[in-house]
């Protein structure tokens, strides 16, 4: 029988996409890895919208497409602007397999199983309460009055960073830094997926909703089609949800499902799951001052690695890839002689060279767009009235340009506002 080591090569806090990717990589390289997960089992506490970009995951797990829980490949993208009972939609139909829908609970469980099969020890039902330190050096973790030692700790605890907070490495989350996501998974009749969503076998839709989705609060909605269910949810900036929401948040999802233009998609549906979770929003302010310390690396949501483009989120692939890079950094630091901050600094370098930091830098201003209320109220309204003017002809047709200006004016915006907002959008997206 295997012996319980006095000390592990690496301890990973959290069996989310970030943690399991680290554990998997390190275990395949022969490191003795321990993963600690506070939930009943890996996956039980993970929440997300519904779509994952596949390329980074294929790099981490070579057999990803063969055995991962992929529900449907996203072949249809839809973006809708809602205003009252009107809906303006853009539809794109592609056919390459760039992203897929899934349940994060299943994907996280699959990733944890991969790590376990590669030799990592995964212990669930244990909450890490702090880091074990020797001077400034992290030498393990604490769980209540117990502790375990390791050469290096990877913090992959997600956005709610209680361990990092308790150690004083980051400050407590402020409502202005995060958004609140609420989501339902509902079982739908297979015919709804075929007929209403127009999806063939294995085809999926990713649908983002803007405008009258959150009753004018900054935020948006999403709908993803899974194998035989649909995920529907909302994301709202937490501070404005606290001050502006006048209903319990789940009611906003209910309202969305019964919207006159959406209800047909949810006919005879049954709720399978309801969940709520925080999402990093003002990403740059959430990033810890450093990502590598003596004996400690930070990855995934805990490091603020999430890209919000307004119409889509990329968190899972960012988390997993940062975890994978943390694993590589540890492997290299090991080669250099140990887990000192100086040796682990290679992690930052790997991140800088990767799509993660490149994207985060490129889109570093998008969260500022979220503060522009017009984008959530006036523009969707303008789009709707524009379409109304274009299509509901009585006798005379209008010139497009006049129609645009007319619609803008109807919604309280002059040409100058249009111009500056336009520039802002071009700049940040």
């Amino acid at each position, binding site marked *: *029988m*295997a*012996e*319980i080591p006095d000390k592990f090569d690496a301890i990973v806090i959290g069996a989310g996409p970030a943690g399991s990717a680290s554990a998997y990589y390190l275990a395949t390289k022969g490191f003795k890895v*321990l993963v*600690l997960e506070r939930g*009943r*089992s890996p996956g*039980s506490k993970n929440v997300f919208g519904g779509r994952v970009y596949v390329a980074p995951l294929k790099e981490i797990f070579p057999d990803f497409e063969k055995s991962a829980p992929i529900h449907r490949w996203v072949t249809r993208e839809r973006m809708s602007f809602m205003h009252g009972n009107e809906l303006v939609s853009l539809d794109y139909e592609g056919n390459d397999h760039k992203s897929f829908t899934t349940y994060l609970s299943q994907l996280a469980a699959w990733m944890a199983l991969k790590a376990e099969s590669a030799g990592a*020890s*995964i*212990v669930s*039902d*244990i909450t890490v309460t702090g880091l074990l330190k020797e001077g400034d050096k992290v030498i393990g973790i604490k*769980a*209540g009055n*117990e502790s*375990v030692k390791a050469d290096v700790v990877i913090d992959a605890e997600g956005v709610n960073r209680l361990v990092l907070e308790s150690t004083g490495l980051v400050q407590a989350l402020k409502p202005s830094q995060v958004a609140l996501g609420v989501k339902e998974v509902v079982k739908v009749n297979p015919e709804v997926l075929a007929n209403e969503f127009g999806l063939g076998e294995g085809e999926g839709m990713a649908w983002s909703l803007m405008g009258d989705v959150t009753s004018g609060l900054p935020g948006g909605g999403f709908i993803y089609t899974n194998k035989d269910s649909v995920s529907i949810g909302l994301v709202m900036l937490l501070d404005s949800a606290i001050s502006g929401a006048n209903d319990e948040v789940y009611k906003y999802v209910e309202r969305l499902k019964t919207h006159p233009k959406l209800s047909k998609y949810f006919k005879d549906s*049954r709720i*399978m*799951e309801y969940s709520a979770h925080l999402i990093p929003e003002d990403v740059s302010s959430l990033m810890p001052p450093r990502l590598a310390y003596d004996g400690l690396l930070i990855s995934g949501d805990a490091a603020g690695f999430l890209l919000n483009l307004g119409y889509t989120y990329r968190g899972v692939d960012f988390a997993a890839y940062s975890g994978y890079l943390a694993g590589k950094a540890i492997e290299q630091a090991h080669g250099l002689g140990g887990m000192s901050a100086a040796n682990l600094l290679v992690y930052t370098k790997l991140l800088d060279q990767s799509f993660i930091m490149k994207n985060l830098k490129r889109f570093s201003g998008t969260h500022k767009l979220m503060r522009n209320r017009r984008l959530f109220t006036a523009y969707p309204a303008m789009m709707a009235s524009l379409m109304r003017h274009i299509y509901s002809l009585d006798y005379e047709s209008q010139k497009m340009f006049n129609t645009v200006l007319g619609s803008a004016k109807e919604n309280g915006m002059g040409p100058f506002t249009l111009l500056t907002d336009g520039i802002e959008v071009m700049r940040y997206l």
Partner: protein
Amino acid sequence: MMGLNIVLLFKYVPNTNTVNVDPNTGTLVREGVPSVVNPHDLDAAEFALELREKYGGKITAMIMAPPNATKGIEFLLGMGVDDGVLITDRAYGGADTLATSYVLAAGIKTLEHYDLIITGQETLDSSTAHIGAQLASWLKIPYVYYVTEASLDNGALVVNRQLESCTEKYKVKLPALITVLMHSHPPRPITLENKLRAVIKKPVMMLTNNELKLNIQCTGLRGSPTVVAKTEFVSKIPRKKEIIKDKSPQEAAAWLISKLKDEGFLN
């Protein structure tokens, strides 16, 4: 006597906080519902651990279930149970209580030695409380239900059995079977040390029909004489909320009584 060899029986059940019943078939929707160790079996586990602390010995957790129940064994190992046995075979699926206890009896007979079998009072998802009595009958050993305390006395077991209005005291010969009164022994938290041992040493044995060699006419669905004749739906009583404000206690009580009468709960 060198401590007690205890077999702890448990079931891995859908977490009923989240369970739904399919309105068309009347069966539990288990798909996607996370399972937990039957909560009443955690009282039994705590009871077993306290006995081990007092008398020494060893606790083996045993279950007949599909392979995912290994997670349930891991949970109990995390509390401090020594090892586990998972009895699993497709031929055992769809079992009623008779076929379940038959297989469990065979599983227990493979153990080198046992002094005491401990079960929970009943399960969350079926609540028949049959298993204890049936199993003891297969094994031809004495059994006592609703136990709250147990101690050894010259190689025999003295137990308190809690009934609604009184406590009975019994002395039984070992080996014996007891079922532990629900809620009587709140379980201890699991520890990292125990969990680590569970995950790294994996002290879990699997038994299939290759080992037990039972006649499969007597196991699983085929060995189950119970037939569910019909399931009836009890319609949900919608919750109503009214806030009583600005009334004296007397007025409020009178108001409440008249409300309950209106709703037909009082006459």
